[in-house]
């Protein structure tokens, strides 16, 4: 029984009984106590670890909606508009024009062994280039000999060059598909939209599904990103979780050097009975650092892709309503079965009609299987209105809001998708708070960067990329935002008894900061330097991480 006491400049506990402290004692990876040194000394002999003495500690941050894909993407070239830090800590400056994007791809060729090896990029977002579409001719400037392509930030579109199209036999006329726009010459422009249109070129580029779902290396890269962001518990939302992937994740996460608790959700595609049985079986395979047995369903698509299901009056630009990704009957059945088995379900609902449907299905399922404290969670839930939040509260549901979305696509939502009025109510943190709906906020990494402090900043300011405050009334305070990225997210995962605050008995998971988030100007929240984490009592400094 070894006890280590960490003195710190300040410890923000999230425990109202003792909100601030100077020392935390750790034993067997758990918090023995938090308070002053003389209080903690009462537990017996201890070792004093001074490494964090100048730091500010918070509960380890919890990312309630991310994807391991973020770890996989970094083996490709980052082509995004905004600065972004890779798993090794290198800051990639945003590429601020199409020319800059093409230059970056050209430069990356130097590392390739020959003139035919494919080259892939990710994170491209032409909305910041006045929506000027990238064509295959543009990418032909990078190379005419190797397949070159980049996936958009949304991950729903790829732009590729002529060689990539030729590699799959698509450099021809006569292709008739809404996801494959054609140029004046009748040949594909090189923009490929939607999974069917993208898949073959993605495979040529080395971005096939198996790679993106996350392998050993991707999982390790993802965990290094977590350390750099102060995250000690992160979700993978979600994957089909074949046995081989579960075996791999159990093995990797069990390593003494693995710094993150991973919570992978099982994606339910149909067949509720089999899916729920599988989730129940997976739950039994859980380990300390791999928490299995939660289910993810997807009800609709995305708002910026016009595939989310909206209630009347629909999209601001008149686009037709979006798509259902699962039949309501199947979702309803899955909710009922999961309640019976004590399994938790998180459901992606972007549009307010999808949210409405889930509320209705949940009400029905609960009438049939009354279940206290189920905490079924709506993910994204971007467009819900106040009445829907009140209903979530009445049904005992939680919500995990996509606060980052507001920054990256808020201007588009105002201009195009939902219009000026509804854009101000998107990701309504203040309404959730007022209605008493337990809530978290998320990045959906790799769609936006894994960085909960930035996510908190987004919820506090609701600034869009153009600098507009969109929905002043939905802004929340720093303390509430910090709670959302710790206890709030832990609550939505039913892990709040173990993590999310610094108090006796909980896991020794800390986010280690160089400065005090409660004291810095709240505009600086997003830039607060993260020193690293303590996870299960093990200290991981970002600067000392191995490189991949």
């Amino acid at each position, binding site marked *: 029984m070894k006890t280590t006491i960490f003195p710190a400049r300040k410890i923000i506990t999230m425990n109202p009984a003792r909100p601030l402290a100077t020392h935390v004692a750790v034993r067997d990876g758990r918090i023995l106590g938090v308070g002053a040194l003389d209080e903690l000394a009462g537990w017996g002999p201890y070792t004093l670890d001074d490494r964090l003495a100048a730091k500010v500690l918070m509960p380890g941050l919890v990312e309630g909606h991310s994807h391991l894909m973020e770890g996989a993407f970094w083996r490709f070239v980052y082509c995004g508009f905004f600065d972004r830090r890779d798993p090794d800590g290198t800051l990639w400056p945003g590429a601020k024009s199409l020319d800059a994007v093409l230059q970056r791809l050209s430069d990356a060729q130097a590392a390739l062994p020959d003139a035919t090896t494919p080259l892939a990029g990710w994170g491209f977002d032409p909305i910041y280039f006045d929506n000027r579409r990238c064509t295959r001719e543009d990418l032909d400037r990078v190379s005419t000999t190797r397949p070159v392509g980049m996936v958009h930030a949304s991950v729903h579109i790829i732009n590729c060059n002529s060689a990539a199209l030729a590699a799959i036999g698509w450099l021809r006329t006569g292709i008739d*598909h809404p996801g494959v726009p054609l140029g004046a010459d009748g040949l594909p422009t090189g923009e490929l939209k939607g999974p069917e249109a993208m898949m073959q070129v993605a495979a040529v580029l080395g971005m096939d*599904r198996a790679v993106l779902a996350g392998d050993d290396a991707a999982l390790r890269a993802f965990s290094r990103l977590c350390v750099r962001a102060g995250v000690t518990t992160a979700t993978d939302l979600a994957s*089909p979780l074949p046995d081989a992937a579960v075996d791999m994740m159990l093995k990797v996460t069990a390593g003494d050097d693995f710094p993150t608790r991973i919570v992978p959700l099982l994606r339910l595609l149909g*067949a509720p009975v089999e899916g729920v049985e599988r989730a129940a079986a997976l739950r039994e395979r859980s380990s300390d650092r791999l928490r299995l047995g939660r289910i993810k369903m997807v009800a609709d698509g995305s708002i910026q892709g016009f595939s989310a299901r909206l209630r009347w009056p629909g999209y601001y630009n008149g686009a037709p309503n979006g798509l*259902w990704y699962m*039949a309501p*009957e199947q979702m309803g059945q899955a909710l009922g079965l999961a309640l019976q088995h004590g399994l938790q379900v998180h459901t992606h609902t972007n549009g307010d009609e999808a949210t409405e449907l889930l509320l209705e299905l949940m009400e029905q399922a609960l009438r049939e299987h009354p279940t206290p404290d189920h905490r079924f969670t709506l993910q994204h839930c971007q467009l819900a209105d106040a009445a829907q939040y009140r209903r979530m509260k009445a049904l005992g549901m939680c919500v995990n809001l996509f606060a980052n979305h507001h920054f990256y696509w808020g201007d588009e939502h105002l201009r195009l998708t939902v219009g000026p009025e509804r854009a101000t109510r998107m990701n309504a943190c203040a309404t959730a708070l007022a209605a008493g709906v337990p809530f978290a906020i998320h990045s959906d990494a790799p769609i936006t960067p894994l960085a909960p402090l930035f996510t908190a900043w987004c919820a506090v300011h609701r600034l869009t990329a153009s600098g507009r405050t969109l929905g002043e009334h939905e802004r929340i305070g720093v303390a509430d935002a910090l709670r959302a990225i710790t206890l709030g997210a832990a609550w939505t995962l039913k892990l709040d008894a173990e993590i999310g605050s610094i108090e006796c008995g909980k896991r020794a998971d800390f986010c280690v900061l160089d400065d005090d988030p409660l004291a810095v100007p709240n505009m600086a929240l997003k830039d607060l330097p993260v020193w690293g984490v303590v996870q299960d009592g093990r200290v991981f400094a970002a600067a000392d991480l191995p490189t991949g």
Partner: protein
Amino acid sequence: MASPIPVTLIGGYLGAGKTTLVNHLLREREGRRIAVLVNDFGELPIDDALIESRDGTLLQLAGGCVCCSFGHDLMAALQQMLALQPRPEHILIETSGVALPGAVARTLGLLAGLRLDAVLVLADAETVRERAADRYVGELVREQLQQADLLLLNKTDLLPEAALAPLRDWCATAAPRARVIATQQARLAPALLFGEPAGAAAPRRAGAMIDARALFDSLSLEFEHAVDLQALAEALAALPLLRAKGLMRDRDGRMRSLQLVGTRRALAEAAHAAAQPGRLVCIALRGELPAERIRALVARCAC
């Protein structure tokens, strides 16, 4: 190059009988080598009796047939089917209950080696009108119906007799492009989807429940002259035919094939262009085959 593999899409909302139809067609396949793609191995599974072995997402079925669950990745599954040796003679895709068959159909066009033969949509006779008016999925169900070449009005045995005629009228409006066929337990004559068996003497399973001859009329024509195939195809599509198939000399002297399902028609260069008499086979519901009009059309389109 081998001729493209015909693909039939089997769509329709949850519970309409899609898997029942797939099982039925696998039992009544009459020696054909069929590949079935299903969205997932659902609760109404492929008949155990048909399964010979299982390897992850691929089931080996009796008679060289296979069944593959494609989940999110229809394209990958189709590529897998195209790589099979020997090649399947026909591919059936059972789409998810919320899929739009039209969107799946366009996806097929992205792969060489496939030919969309027909979009078949099933509707539960008991519930389809209610579903089509549903607040959440009504629009989706109506779109599915609109995209059908063949509409299988299934479970008609659960319907009072007097309700069938009004329902058929409703279907004519809801699925304007489709020929409507009433079925029970999705027992559709396989010839309607696959055409006649490859060998005329293909073995007929003992006790087979469906005999196409009992429910359908067919007409077989042979003729020496060339035809304006485009004009003939359009005219045939306007007749109440379920299916037509032909091989004939077109106005430019080349042999071309014609495939017609409902109003969907496809013309293609014939693989073997040797001069031979033109042939045309038409199938319609019993009592609905306009034999004289078809003969007259063939004569009128002669050139």
